[in-house]
């Protein structure tokens, strides 16, 4: 406690320079927080994907998208190890403005078993099957379009017109449900039978993919190979992939985002390390006489070292806190990071980011005070007091 005035006096000797050091540290930690947040969130999304859930899609996708026939659900369910098959028809289009993309994930009765992670209660499923034009909106989707239960919601799909030629379908919001980590902007869950029946006759029963649940994650590759082999010579060859493997592959399919984000974060900290180390070294060398006096009047060398470390730690820790707060604020702006909508999503802010920032701030402080501490170690009280 008796050191507090000394610490305050040391920090506040040159207020402008102290403030500038703190501001620079805050900006560096804001960048660090954003990059670590992006990386941690991406990794979390991948880890939340499961190996015991499989995607089954067309092996040779075409355009306009033909998709897999819903008749495949039966044979898929009979593959050894499969515990559930959900037929999924994605309606991809926009809501009102072509620049406002919107999708409805239309699912059949296999949903609860084929994709058990969908945050729906038994009663909600029953309501969805009973209401052909109904959709459940996830909270993020509801916030995005200001949806409440009972609202009507239009989705226009120029590539997927209805039998009467109309590209716009109108859905009724039945209720709100939880979000899925891999659907960063939320999702709308609809009724596959309604979507299918609205299609032109030639396209009914088509346009699907399947979400398949299996009992044993260790069997994922074997089940996928069996599924693909079973349909290899059919009119609709399939491509099966475990959801986690797919997520990992997507994250790896471009420039390595993990490496990129961590490099940028590292460069930011490297930049700030020299600034803080220099500021502390300068401060200590300007105050050698003061340290000599303190040692003369009975302050322990350990206490003086502690003071120097605290002086280094203060801008680092305050910078880490302020920077993390700035990064958190920036993530609230829902920054879009372009094409990686599903896997590398907008940076989120898991609490672990704050822990990382504080940890690195402590390391930075320790590293910055190494040279000044060595200088103190060789301090000759007599020489310092004599101004030599």
């Amino acid at each position, binding site marked *: 406690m008796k050191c507090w005035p000394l610490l305050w006096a040391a920090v506040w000797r*040159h207020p*402008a*320079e102290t403030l*500038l*050091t703190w*501001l*620079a540290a805050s*900006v*560096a930690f*804001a*960048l660090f927080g*954003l990059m670590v947040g992006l990386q941690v969130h991406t990794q979390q999304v991948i880890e939340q994907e499961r190996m015991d859930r499989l995607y089954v899609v067309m*092996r*040779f*996708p*075409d*355009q*306009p998208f033909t998709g897999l026939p819903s008749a495949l659900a039966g044979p898929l369910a009979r593959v050894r190890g499969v515990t559930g098959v959900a037929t999924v028809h994605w309606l991809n289009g926009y809501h009102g403005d072509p620049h406002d993309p919107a999708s409805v994930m239309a699912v059949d009765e296999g949903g609860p078993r084929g994709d058990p992670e969908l945050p729906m209660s038994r009663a909600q499923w029953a309501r969805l099957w009973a209401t052909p034009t109904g959709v459940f909106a996830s909270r993020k989707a509801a916030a995005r379009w200001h949806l409440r239960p009972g609202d009507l919601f239009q989705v226009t799909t*120029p*590539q997927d017109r209805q039998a009467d030629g109309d590209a716009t379908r109108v859905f009724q919001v039945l209720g709100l449900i939880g979000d899925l980590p891999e659907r960063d902007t939320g999702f709308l869950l609809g009724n596959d039978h309604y979507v299918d029946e609205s299609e032109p006759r030639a396209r009914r029963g088509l346009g699907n993919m399947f979400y398949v649940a299996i009992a044993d994650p260790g069997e994922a590759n074997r089940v996928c190979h069996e599924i693909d082999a079973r349909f*290899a010579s059919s*009119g609709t*060859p399939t*491509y099966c*992939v475990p959801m986690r*493997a*797919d997520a990992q*592959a997507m994250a*790896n*399919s*471009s*420039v390595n985002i993990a490496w*990129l984000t961590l*490099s*940028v974060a590292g*460069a*930011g900290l*490297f*930049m*700030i390390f*020299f*600034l803080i180390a*220099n*500021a502390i*070294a*300068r401060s200590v060398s300007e105050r050698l006489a003061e340290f000599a006096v303190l040692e003369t009047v009975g302050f322990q060398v350990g206490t003086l070292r502690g003071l120097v470390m605290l002086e280094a730690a203060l801008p680092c820790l305050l910078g880490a806190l302020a920077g993390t707060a700035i990064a958190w604020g920036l993530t609230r702006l829902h920054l879009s*990071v*372009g*094409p*990686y909508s599903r896997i590398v999503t907008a940076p989120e802010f898991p609490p672990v980011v704050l822990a990382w920032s504080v940890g690195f701030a402590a390391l930075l402080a320790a590293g910055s005070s190494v040279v000044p501490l060595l200088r103190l170690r060789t301090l000759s009280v007599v020489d310092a007091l004599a101004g030599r």
Partner: protein
Amino acid sequence: MNVLAQCLLVARVSLGGLPARLGSSLVIALGMACVVGVLVSMLSVGAGMLRVFRASGDPSRALVLPSHALDEHGMDLGPSALSTVLDAPGIARDGDGRPMADPEVVVNVPPVDGFVQGSLNIRGIGPRGLALRPEVRLVAGRLFHPGRRELIVGAGAGRVFHLKLGDTLIMPDGPWPIVGTFAGGGALQTQLMTDAVTLMTATRRPGFGSVVVRLTRPDAFAGFKRWLMTNPAIEVTAERQADFYLRQGSDYTFYQTMAYFVAALMSIGALFGAVNILHSAVRARTREIAILRAVGYAPLPLALSVTLESLLLSLAGALAGAVLAWALFNGHESLSGIVFRWSVSPRLVALGIAWALALAVLGSLFPALRAARLPVSVALHD
């Protein structure tokens, strides 16, 4: 002594004192090295993509697509639409008077060893497909024979998807061997090529996805496009090939945006750092500045000496950052829809240096003003 002479003298004194302030001077240089290094490295991703897009599109080549199609993966161009397209004005003719045009189809297939590293495309080309792209050259094996289930692989696709001569790809109608390897052609190098009709038969496609045409000259494009788009018999659109590839590269926009965002944030940090260091440098030189003012030096040379110091240190840092970015990343190969190499071009280096110099001027403003306004009597007394 005139102002210019004063400036030179003060600058000499100021720069002469740099070794005494080596640690703090290095902080400015290192800060700028980090900013420029990160900016140039990240922009080199986009620059590499852009280079591939440009290599992919000869200005005299155009692409005709169904009007609703976003890419070449469709199958809506049937025989009647094709014959209408080939009647369009502006299409170059070969020696026999046939239009230099090639209907093509692109099919997406999963890579051989699983859904790794993105998707793999097979391009089906017609008899004039290679004549339209003289930049494509066979580097190993032979060309596929039309009508046979054979493929040639682009050099980039070969490296990224680990495909080589002799490998086979499982297609709907059985295994197709890779009989050759080609290089050149920009984005095309990320694909496999085969005979269009054989590919359409194998994948049960009733029509083509696009038509590549060579125009008589690049400025014939406007008339060619107008004729196609106003023709009531067909619903197609035309694009210059280079523009098409650039539009496909949404990743390009992402990397450019991310590069500038990160660089802007780092620059703010470096700016605070530079102001801090220069501010303390002015403080350390208080007496020197006061003496110079007392013997008649104008405030301007003193202010300029601070700016010059900042500019020189930033320039050194920027050069170091750019050299580091070049040494670490230039030529690094990545896949992002296309196979490309990161490109630390002279233009990017120049941009990085300009960025650092702008920061240097901005960062030195406040300390330079402080140096110029220092009250002589107070400073001498200090």
